[in-house]
């Protein structure tokens, strides 16, 4: 089943979003080397088609829960790049006020609920967000992204079961990049066919080529329609690959260079360009220069951003606003 051909404009949007994420993270690597960014830095490079494709299928009021590898999700969901970059710098202008950093990007108005650095830890709250939406009578869905490593956690199974039992509008989006840090899926799972696990919870489940942004968009769109209509949760396995190390401290002893090179032939950006014949060299140049200008501005703003006064240290331990 192949995805419908996109309009030229849509193809260009998809391309720009993937390039934005790729270039954003390349800047982050440079800034990390320059010690402007610290902490853990988990790159999404190679996996951009998943977040970009999936976000196309979401409506404005939908909720998103992601993991510590979520720069791409935040950007693709519309969190402005200057807020994300400022967060990387620990600036008060950051999307989490500098309290979260790379692994904890939040944006309440966009219903972007992080940024969870506990493997599997985002799934139970995603189920709860969906429960709240359903109880409030909203027709929104909650998109919950997690890696295949999370499938071994109890929280995955508890959450899948609860969401299915209560027929809650959750889209479980499993980014299978084959490795959880250095542990290959077949070295951690007795059953490596992940859709079977979802099927055991009576949940519709598909496996999708996660290097094909059009296929991802199409699959998530179809799943979202059914979830939104009250059909209960769905599970998608997005088969993808991370081109870079797990984080900045990973000598990559667990995989062969040839394997990485082979997967780079599947680069989602190149595949989109190849799939959509009418993206011209001019188009590509224009996208690159738009993105470069945006990121120049984001880095400059982050550099110029301010540090929260240390006297504010104990703020935000409790909520300072009033409840509605």
């Amino acid at each position, binding site marked *: 089943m192949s995805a419908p051909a996109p309009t030229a404009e849509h193809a260009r949007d998809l391309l720009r979003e993937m390039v934005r994420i790729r270039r954003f993270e390349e800047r982050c690597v440079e800034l990390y080397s320059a010690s402007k960014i610290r902490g853990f830095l988990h790159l999404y490079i190679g996996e951009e088609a998943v977040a970009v494709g999936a976000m196309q299928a979401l409506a404005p009021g939908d909720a998103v829960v992601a993991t510590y590898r979520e720069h791409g999700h935040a950007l693709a969901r519309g969190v402005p790049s200057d807020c994300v970059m400022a967060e990387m710098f620990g600036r008060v202008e950051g999307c989490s006020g500098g309290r979260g950093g790379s692994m*904890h990007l939040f944006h309440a108005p966009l219903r972007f609920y992080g940024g969870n650095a506990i493997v599997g830890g985002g799934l139970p709250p995603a189920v*709860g967000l969906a429960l709240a939406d359903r109880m*409030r009578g909203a027709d929104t869905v909650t998109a919950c992204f997690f890696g295949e490593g999370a499938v071994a956690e109890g929280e995955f199974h508890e959450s899948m079961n609860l969401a299915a039992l209560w027929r809650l509008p959750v889209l479980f989006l499993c980014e299978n990049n084959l490795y959880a840090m250095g542990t290959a899926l077949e070295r951690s799972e007795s059953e490596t066919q992940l859709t079977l696990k979802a099927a055991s919870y009576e949940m519709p489940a598909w496996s999708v080529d996660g290097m094909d942004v059009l296929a991802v968009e199409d699959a998530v769109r179809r799943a979202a329609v059914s979830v939104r209509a009250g059909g209960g949760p769905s599970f998608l396995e997005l088969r993808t690959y991370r081109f870079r190390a797990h984080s900045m401290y990973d000598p990559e002893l667990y995989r062969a260079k040839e394997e990485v090179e082979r997967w780079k032939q599947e680069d989602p950006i190149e595949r989109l360009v190849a799939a959509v014949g009418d993206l011209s060299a001019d188009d590509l140049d224009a996208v690159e220069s738009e993105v470069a200008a945006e990121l120049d501005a984001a880095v400059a703003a982050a550099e110029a951003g301010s540090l929260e006064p240390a006297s504010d240290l104990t703020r935000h331990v409790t909520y300072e606003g009033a409840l509605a």
Partner: protein
Amino acid sequence: MTYRDAMREALRDALRRDERVFLMGEDVGRYGGCFGVSKGLLDEFGPERVRDTPLSESAFVGAGIGAAMGGMRPVVEIMTVNFSLLALDQIVNNAATLTHMSGGQLAIPLVIRMTTGAGRQLAAQHSHSLEGWYAHIPGLRILTPATLEDARGMLWPALCDPNPVLIFEHGALYNMEGELPEEPPEVDIESAMVRRPGDDVSLITYGGTLWKALAAADELAGEGISAEVLDLRVLRPLDDAALEASVTKTHRAVIVDEGWRSGSLSAEVAARLTERCFYDLDAPVERVCSEEVPVPYAKHLEEEALPQVDDIVTAAMRTVRGQVPQAAEAGRV
């Protein structure tokens, strides 16, 4: 009316007052709650608002967090504190951190209720008192209702708090009888409360041991010792002013805590007293805690392991009559 009834009234009242309030947990519906607290609420409010969950502490506590972020006012019941350990990730890594990690963007108006404590011959895995552990965590508010008024009154202000609140109900209290006025008094979830005023020694406690401390104060009165009993009520944040006020008056303190002594809430209170009231103290601070052993099944051993009225009386007498603390004497931990 019992403590259990008071708690049920509090739930019923909250469910009536605000349609965003709902209760979920294991066996809260058809079974009526493992301690009978929610009996009848399913019939009254229906399965959408009184939700039986699977045995998935992590998922339903986490779902409570998500639902709170999503605009609801969930009350999550965990059968007992012992099982809350399966939800520690959600409580400590999510409920307590999301407001902060988001730079203050997210409110988590969630209440988690659970039973705590020993004394019913349930052996080691059903007898923990870990509320002091949770009181270690910034971002959580920890309540320990010990009276009918507090059982009835603490839930609503807890639901109005934009932050996660954990309510610990001591299992030995559910059958406690008492009276409540038709219009129940409003209570706060900030302050400690003097349950019995006195001049010679402060008995500082909370939850299930409040009643043992009050019984000890009666006995001490027979010995001519006037003991003040301070009910902490809120373990986090602690009411430092109330601690200070009581101890600067009595100059002596006995802390009674069903948790273990090492690294405990009693240790925290003792440390605060030395920080704040050192020069007002006329005797070393005493602690009456559980013995450092998993709580045993056999009745005589369980009783030996837990703080008892006699232990409190003895400790108070030592602080007043100036003897060496027994713990130091015996070289116990």
